[in-house]
């Protein structure tokens, strides 16, 4: 019986002594931290993609809590997540301007000419450092897949030597835009359905020599839907700042002779099924 009491007394004594020491240390080495930051991190999707411009989700959470950024700046969060964060912190959700990336080139293996055979690292940056890459067009997609490998959401597929971004998977984080050495990938409003898939500003005869689906600047699209397109020299682009944006009907009305004006859906279907569709269309 004695030994039991002594044992318990010893344990209690040691425990108490240690507890006091820990208590003193906790006072001396106190660290102030905001519990709201952890709350926001919990509510965020946690992809750590860097699309907001900060280094990671915890940095973004700190910025939101300190009021430097709006919760809607996270491109991956759904509108429900954004409003949940806004509610938890008692602030405004902010304007959400959703963007998505698109590769503005239609030059896959069948449609473009390669001037030389390239033997080296299969990476777009490396290839563009060797005489500007093996492709005839120095403004087009090189097709070596550097963007596809870098995409944190697996939204880019390489089909036929051309990068295609799947709209539904893209969140607009901008990683692919930074990687591409040709600046072929652009961030456009998420609602944009119609694009001119050509990035080359060269003169039309030079372009046609190396690519079957280059935009020749014939202005048929601008005539069919004025104000919706911008023409610079021999290249047409969709005016993404204009509302309303071009629709599938505008594509049909324009009857683009080279097949560089397409809806995103058409572009995907062409690459997946029929590489030589332009001959069929004519």
């Amino acid at each position: 019986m004695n030994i039991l009491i002594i044992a318990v007394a010893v344990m209690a004594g040691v425990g108490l002594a240690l507890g006091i020491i820990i208590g003193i240390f906790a006072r001396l080495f106190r660290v102030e931290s905001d519990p709201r930051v952890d709350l926001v991190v919990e509510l965020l999707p946690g992809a750590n993609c860097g699309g907001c411009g900060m280094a990671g989700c915890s940095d973004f959470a700190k910025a939101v809590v300190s009021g430097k950024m709006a919760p809607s700046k996270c491109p991956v969060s759904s509108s429900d997540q954004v409003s949940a964060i806004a509610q938890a912190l008692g602030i405004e959700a902010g304007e959400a301007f959703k963007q998505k990336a698109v590769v503005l080139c239609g030059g896959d293996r069948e449609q473009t000419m390669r001037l030389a055979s390239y033997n080296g690292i299969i990476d777009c940056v490396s290839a563009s450092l060797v005489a500007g890459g093996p492709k005839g067009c120095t403004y087009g997609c090189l097709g070596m897949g550097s963007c596809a490998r870098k995409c944190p959401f697996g939204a880019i597929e390489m089909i036929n030597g051309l990068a295609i971004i799947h709209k539904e998977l893209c969140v607009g984080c901008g990683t692919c835009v930074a990687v591409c050495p040709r600046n072929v990938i652009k961030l456009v409003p998420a609602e944009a359905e119609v694009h001119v898939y050509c990035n080359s500003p060269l003169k039309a005869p030079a372009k046609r020599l190396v690519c079957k689906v280059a935009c020749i600047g014939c202005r048929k699209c601008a005539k069919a839907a004025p104000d919706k397109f911008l023409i610079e020299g021999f290249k047409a682009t969709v005016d993404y700042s204009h509302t309303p944006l071009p629709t599938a009907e505008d594509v049909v009305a324009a009857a683009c002779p080279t097949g560089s004006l397409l809806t995103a859906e058409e572009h995907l279907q062409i690459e997946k099924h029929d590489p030589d569709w332009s001959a069929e269309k004519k």
Partner: protein
Amino acid sequence: MKSNSKDYLSFDGGIHPASDGKSLSEGSPVQRPPLLDRYRVVISESVGKPPKPVVQPGDLVKKYQLIAQAEGFVSANLHSPTSGKVVGIVEVAGAMGIPVPAIEIESDGKDEPCEPMPPLDWKTASAADLLARIGEAGVVGMGGAAFPTRVKLSPPPEKQIDTLILNGAECEPYLTADHRLMLEKPRAVLEGAAISAKILGVKNIYIGVEVNKTDAIEALNKHAADYNIYVVGLKVQYPQGSEKQLIDAVTKREVPTGGLPMDAHCVVQNVGTAAAVSDAVTLGIPLVERITTVTGDVVKNPGNWLLKLGTPVIKAVEFAGGVTEEPGKLILGGPMMGFAQKTFDVTVCKNTSGILLLPQSDSIAYDPSPCIRCGRCVAGCPMGLLPCLLGSVIEAERFDLAAENHVMDCLECGSCAYVCPAHRPLVQHMRRAKAEIRKQSKK
């Protein structure tokens, strides 16, 4: 510092390419090609801001007339290589594969020069006047980067330059342009060196020449004493002609990491540039033509040609008799550091030292295999880097580790890739890493 060229000075590392191909064109004296009907002079081939064209389509120009004016300090003037009519500004394929603007001149067949600039007596002229003349003549570094010579010869005074080294090493296989220049016009080279030394205010002037060019060394030695220049014999090794290696071999000084030759108190100049300096000062002639080696096993008559700026490469090959079979590769420069081309639409620029056509049998595409850590690349690297480690970290896309291991000091000389038994594309890895790191630092 000895002037006896029996001493073989050298640096650590480096390789000895098996066949140096120089025998194809070594013995051919420099020839002047016939006049062409069109010349397309690339505007922006030198480092720095491109010069601004000062002629309009339809203008009549004479040979040596100014056609583009330098913009700012780091920029070089451009002059017409022949007399004729300016057609306009066209796009030609650049040496780096991207289309570049060029001024197209239709020749009138007369090749009439305009009034040359008044000759200067370099012994009495001031350094400032000499420098201004070099700037007016549009002289740029003809050994590679085409850096405006006027800028190179104006280093900041705190660098305390005390040595001028002339690069006559020509370590690249197949190229013999500098060799023939030293052999045929040694006085021009030496005079250019003396003029440059006067501008810099240095007393130590060396010309580094590889010891296998015995005739060139002899030709230079005949007159070197007149100009107080030492001719230094260098061991035949690649890349002996690289600035940093040349400084190490001749003065035993080391250029610090990320530094330039002026940080080692030296200025390095190509012999071709020196000859151009001499022409500009003593004859008043701007830089409009250069000696280029047109060579390769598939070229009928490989040799050295005095080509005007804007000569299409395909015409240069025709001067040399054309090809005996379909070439595998077209390289501007040497086989180690030259640029492979994907079209014959390129033209001769101020720094085109060679036009090399390799046969299909020499243009084999290798499949790389894993690194076996044999260490040949480490032994061969002239900068003391670890190419095997850099290759694997860059392949894993760890550019931070690559920067830690000094990838920015890589010369891209190709020694590592040349000796690698696994045929790994090491130089391409380095170039990719350097491009990514530069992009990161710009952000």
